[in-house]
């Protein structure tokens, strides 16, 4: 564990007054190793470690605190700050109803399930009357999946036959929302690769037609190094508002979360912590920081 590795590296600090370049070298290396084992992007880990090293150098060694612990705290706090990003802003607020949210992301990341979870969360916590729009017309039974979830939760779902086109379905879904007094509309889109030009263009078409107040990128917490490639491309194509990290109930260290926040500059707003509709939590940066550091 990192604590163990740092404990060993910190014999050098015992009796020292100040953290210096040489007495923290082993500790820095242990932290970088921990980040890499947690799937953090290579460059992101390098930059992050250099940044914290700058902060740590010259810090007085607090007498009451075990130096290894103090060093870990330095990293934990920096990681938390980074993950906290602009979280204070939360979901966007629409100048006039309905608030339109658009979910996007790679195949199987958890978008459809998250749409239902978010709708339930908004109804329970913000007294909203959400409408789910089934805009994935390509995956077999994707529309059925959202409709089944809607039925289970008594949440309205707007759907059309799969011969329709996603941008038009979304636009008509918005019109439907206005006639039925829904104050939130959540657009579920098909999973797609960031390198699939026609499908990325389709996402931009949906965005141009429906002008969502917030685009949420749904990311699997077990993503490896490819996380930055896909996040960068989605971020380049769409104005991302925030991120949702899913399957956090697993045991992946979740370093991809750090990488994605760093390259998009957007905060993680929610964490999916299970398959049930109420398994959605507001993201907890300090807890995630501890998990990434291992």
């Amino acid at each position, binding site marked *: 564990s990192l604590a163990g590795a740092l404990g060993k590296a910190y014999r050098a600090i015992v009796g020292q007054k100040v953290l210096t370049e040489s007495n923290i070298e082993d500790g820095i290396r242990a932290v970088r190793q921990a980040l890499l084992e947690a799937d953090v992007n290579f460059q992101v880990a390098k930059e992050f470690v250099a940044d914290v090293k700058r902060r740590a150098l010259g810090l007085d060694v607090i007498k009451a605190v075990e130096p290894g612990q103090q060093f870990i705290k330095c990293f934990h706090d920096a990681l938390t700050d980074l993950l906290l990003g602009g979280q204070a802003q939360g979901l966007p607020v629409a100048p006039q109803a309905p608030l339109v949210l658009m979910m996007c992301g790679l195949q199987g990341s958890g978008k459809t399930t998250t749409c239902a979870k978010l709708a339930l969360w908004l109804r329970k916590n913000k007294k909203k009357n959400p409408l789910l729009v089934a805009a994935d017309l390509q995956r077999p039974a994707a529309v059925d*999946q959202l409709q089944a979830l809607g039925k289970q939760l008594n949440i309205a779902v707007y759907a059309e036959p799969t011969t329709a086109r996603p941008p038009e379905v979304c636009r008509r879904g918005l019109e439907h929302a206005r006639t039925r007094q829904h104050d939130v509309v959540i657009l579920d889109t098909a999973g797609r690769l960031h390198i699939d030009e026609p499908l990325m263009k389709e996402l931009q078409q949906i965005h141009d037609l429906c002008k969502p107040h917030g685009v949420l990128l749904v990311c699997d917490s077990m993503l490896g190094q490819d996380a930055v490639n896909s996040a960068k491309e989605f971020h380049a194509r769409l104005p991302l508002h925030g991120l949702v990290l899913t399957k956090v*109930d697993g045991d992946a260290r979740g370093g991809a979360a750090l990488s994605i926040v760093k390259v998009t500059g957007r905060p993680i707003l929610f964490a999916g912590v299970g*398959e049930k509709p109420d398994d959605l939590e507001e993201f907890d940066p300090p807890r995630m920081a501890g998990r990434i550091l291992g």
Partner: protein
Amino acid sequence: LFSFGRKLDETFLEELEEVLYNSDLGPVGTRIVEDLKESYRKREVKEVAEVPAFLRRRLLHRLAGSEAPLVSAPQGPTVVLIVGVNGSGKTTSIAKLAAHLKKQGKSVLLGAGDTFRAAAVEQLTRWAERLGIPIVKQPTGADPAAVAFDAVAAAVARKVDYLLLDTAGRLHTQKNLMAELEKVVRVVKKQLPDAPHETLLVLDATTGQNAIRQASEFAQSAPVTGLILAKMDGTAKGGAFFGIREVLPVPVKFLGVGEGVEDLEPFAVEGYVDAILT
């Protein structure tokens, strides 16, 4: 990275470590760079120009024996159980595998073993209809072991060549769901002692080091005999497979390379390694 005249120095080694790391090789990549350092010290590798060949040899060596075709039971239906974490590509891989087998003239039966997730039965049923392949199913909420039982019974009665049994996605951290998987395996074994003849763990190629945990944990609850690396058509290289090889040395039977029914390829080690070194 391997440009002409480049020195084999610390900067080169760090850049190389980054390239391997970016393909999700993780600690295996670090170890390979250590091996290279050692070989350089012993003058076995003298310059950067020799590094690509060195890497290729090392990577291929680690993957020796990692290719194998789908098994075929000597008699009776071959039961193929498909397992893996949520969203990895199980149901779609079953559809692709079914189409592939049907093309080879084999008779196939599908078992809709995911009785939990919303519209999971519908999803596999749509595929069955598209492919003209029979499917055994029960309504969502049924006991998955009961579906497994029915599917095996039907496979035997109809004398099909292959039964492809779908299961619900599950995280290996969910003890009750892993126990459920063990029960499905037991039920299948009880009916056909040699079944499941093949248990394929479907892994998402974009997954990082957690894939190694998935492999070792799933192998505790099911007799995993092979892997399917899905979503290899993206930019991910599926490099976690190197780490998996150290804890679960089973072959990769297929690669998933798209969302269409034709998008299944047999695993070819050389192409896989070349993609990582490009």
